[in-house]
């Protein structure tokens, strides 16, 4: 997830959230709508069922009134046979729904000797009426349903529906009403007034019920037999129970039972039972006749409207989500594109191309601010680096000049043993180990004439270029004054005066200088604040040379310097050094110290001047190995051999 782009994340989260909300809303809407729809449909069905039942019953009751009336008529008085026939005829002719009528008497009830008396009139297809007399050996009407049932029940009764035998495929049902004669105070069953009623009118009423496209209504008889059904094959041949049996549905059987028991209700049925699809069944009884009306409502057709609406909503939702995706992508792009550009440019800049211009992002928002900040940073970086480059170049220039200066400085120092006529009367050697920085130690030696050697060792305060310049001036002064043949104290006095000039920074130099008479070994020397040299007499121990007191050069004009003298015997050695030797530091922070120096000199007192100088330097370097050298180290050794020319 972490490697996915910004756009992807934006889209994912926005869409997930939106779709979740949409789905929730949609689910709620759909569910509620469905419920409302179902409720409405059920209400509708109930009303429809009731109104149909009412309609049908009205017809039936109306029709049933005819035989009822005549039955009560017959109960009142006696009629002649002719009258009876006429009554029967009237029953049919006056009532179009009555297809046939009969008044059947009990055996011998009408007239003695008349076993059967049952005038019957019926309407033929062509509309003519025909009268017959029912009852003979082949038609024992006493056992017929239409006769027996009312007699047994002592009340009017409808028979089960049946097909008309006369053809025409009409379904009939007979309504039979018993009539009685009161005799000797008790009622005696006389016979039955019966009328055959065509049920096609009912069928029409029920068939007219059209709910949605595949919804329908059906009537079942007292036994559950279909009286009307959109599928005419089922009429009179199947019952709700046979359907239940066929579909193996105990639910349907239960419903059938309830229906014929006069129950009323609403049931949900799965697909395949009464309809191909899922449906709802509303049923109500026709109490007067003992039948039941069922209204079947297809669920999906019912919900069609809701479903269609739902589909529309989903489509709109999807379209909306799609549009949203596009918009989010576009917006994300307005962020990621400049970011990509910026990062690409930054990579270029990181490579060192500080001149890469950042893309122009003229926006007021955070991206614009970022772009502007980047540009500012780039320019600042450019400036900084330019500055740094210049500074570094300048620094490198200075350092190279320092190197050159150092080289010049070192080149001033005499290296070689000055050539002397004939044999060597003395040996002089010096080592100067400069510190990292350009420094302020100096040494010098030269023959001021055939018999006199001038030498000096000095240490300028501090380090760096000022010290180096000061050193150069001092060295020149010392040599220059020495070459006029002046003694050491004069040299220092004069030098001091010159150096005291404009010296606010209080730079100073310590100097030890001496003039050795090569014929006699007489050494005249003077000191200006410098480390006391070590003198090693031949066959003697190293000792510090007593020096005249003298202040550092360059500070106090009034300073005065004195000369001291000693005699050097052949084999004597003088070692002059700077504090770079004694103040060299080791890793433990200890100073090399004068003690160490003394010990080193002692151990190599038999060496030549050069040997001693080299040895001391090596010893100091070993002592402070690993520690960067802080100060110049200078050692000058002078041995008087005294050899005569």
């Amino acid at each position, binding site marked *: 997830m972490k490697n996915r782009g910004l756009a992807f994340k934006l889209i994912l989260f926005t869409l997930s959230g939106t779709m979740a909300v949409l789905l929730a809303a949609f689910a709620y809407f759909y569910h509620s709508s469905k419920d409302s729809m179902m409720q409405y449909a059920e209400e509708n069905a109930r009303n429809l069922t009731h109104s149909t039942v009412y309609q049908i019953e009205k017809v039936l009751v109306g029709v049933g009134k005819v035989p009822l009336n005549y039955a009560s008529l017959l109960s009142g008085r006696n009629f002649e046979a002719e009258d009876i026939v006429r009554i029967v005829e009237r029953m049919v002719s006056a009532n179009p729904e009555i297809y046939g009528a009969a008044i059947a008497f009990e055996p011998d009830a009408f007239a003695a000797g008349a076993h059967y008396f049952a005038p019957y009139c019926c309407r033929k297809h062509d509309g003519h009426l025909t009268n017959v007399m029912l009852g003979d050996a082949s038609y024992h009407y006493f056992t017929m349903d239409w006769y027996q049932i009312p007699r047994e029940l002592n009340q009017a009764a409808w028979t089960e529906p049946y097909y008309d035998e006369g053809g025409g495929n009409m379904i009939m049902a007979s309504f039979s009403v018993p009539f009685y004669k009161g005799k000797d105070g008790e009622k005696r069953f006389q016979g039955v007034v019966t009328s055959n009623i065509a049920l096609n009118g009912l069928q029409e009423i029920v068939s007219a019920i059209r709910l949605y496209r595949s919804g329908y209504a059906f009537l079942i008889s007292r036994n559950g037999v279909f009286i009307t059904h959109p599928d005419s094959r089922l009429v009179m041949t199947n019952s709700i129970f046979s359907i239940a049996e066929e579909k193996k549905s105990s639910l349907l059987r239960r419903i059938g039972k309830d229906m014929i028991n006069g129950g009323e209700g609403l049931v949900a049925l799965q697909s395949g039972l009464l309809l191909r699809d899922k449906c709802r069944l509303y049923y109500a009884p026709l109490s007067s006749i003992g039948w039941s009306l069922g209204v079947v409502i297809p669920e999906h057709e019912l919900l069609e409207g809701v479903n269609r609406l739902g589909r529309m909503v989903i489509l709109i939702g999807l379209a909306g989500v799609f549009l949203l995706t596009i918009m989010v992508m576009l917006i994300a792009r307005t962020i990621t594109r400049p970011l990509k550009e910026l990062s690409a440019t930054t990579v270029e800049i990181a490579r060192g191309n500080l001149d890469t211009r950042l893309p122009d992002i003229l926006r007021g928002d955070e991206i614009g601010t970022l772009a502007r900040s980047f540009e500012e940073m780039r320019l600042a970086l450019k400036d900084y680096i330019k500055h740094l480059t210049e500074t570094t170049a300048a620094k490198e220039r200075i350092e190279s000049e320092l190197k050159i200066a150092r080289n010049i400085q070192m080149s001033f120092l005499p290296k070689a043993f000055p050539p002397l006529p004939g044999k060597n009367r003395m040996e002089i050697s010096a080592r100067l180990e400069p510190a990292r920085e350009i420094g302020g130690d100096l040494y010098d030696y030269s023959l001021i004439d055939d018999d006199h050697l001038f030498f000096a060792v000095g*240490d*300028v*305060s*501090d*380090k760096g270029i000022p010290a180096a310049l000061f050193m150069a001036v001092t060295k020149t002064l010392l040599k220059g004054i020495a070459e006029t043949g002046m003694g050491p104290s004069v040299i220092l006095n004069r030098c001091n005066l010159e150096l005291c000039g404009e010296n*606010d*920074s*209080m*730079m*100073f130099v*310590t100097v030890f200088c001496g003039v050795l008479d090569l014929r006699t070994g007489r050494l005249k020397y003077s000191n200006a*604040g*410098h*480390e*006391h040299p070590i003198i090693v007499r031949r066959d003697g121990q190293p000792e510090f040379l007593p020096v005249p*007191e*003298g*202040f*550092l050069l360059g*500070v*106090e004009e009034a300073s005065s310097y004195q000369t001291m003298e000693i005699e050097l015997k052949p084999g004597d050695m003088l070692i002059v050094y700077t*504090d770079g030797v004694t*103040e060299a530091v080791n890793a433990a922070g200890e*100073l090399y110290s004068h003690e160490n120096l003394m010990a080193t000199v002692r151990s190599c007192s038999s060496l030549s001047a050069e040997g001693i100088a080299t040895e001391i330097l090596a010893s100091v370097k070993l002592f402070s190995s690993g520690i960067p050298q802080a*100060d110049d180290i200078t050692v000058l050794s002078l041995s008087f051999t005294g050899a005569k020319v």
Partner: protein
Amino acid sequence: MELKGYKQDKFFIVKASGRLDATTATEFEKFCLESIQQGESMLVVDLAGLEYMSSAGLRSILVVGKKLKSAGGSLSFSSLTPNVAHVFSISSFGSMFTVYDSLEKALGNS
């Protein structure tokens, strides 16, 4: 290097400890010159804790000394450690500035 300064009678005492070399000399110089600017002219520098002094240190002392001299004041030192005493003696600073064994002695003499 640690520097501490306080007034006592007519003296301004500067206590320096640690090392007085090229890296700390400027600090020492500035410290003393500031006190001079604030009107002090009798400086006593106590070096009881100072274990090392380089030529840079000597130079800063000379600068301070020159400033005091032009202001008509004085600069003296006390409690030198052996290393520092050696440096003072070699460079004959003793001829320029008075050096006392202890701070009390330095304050005792006016």
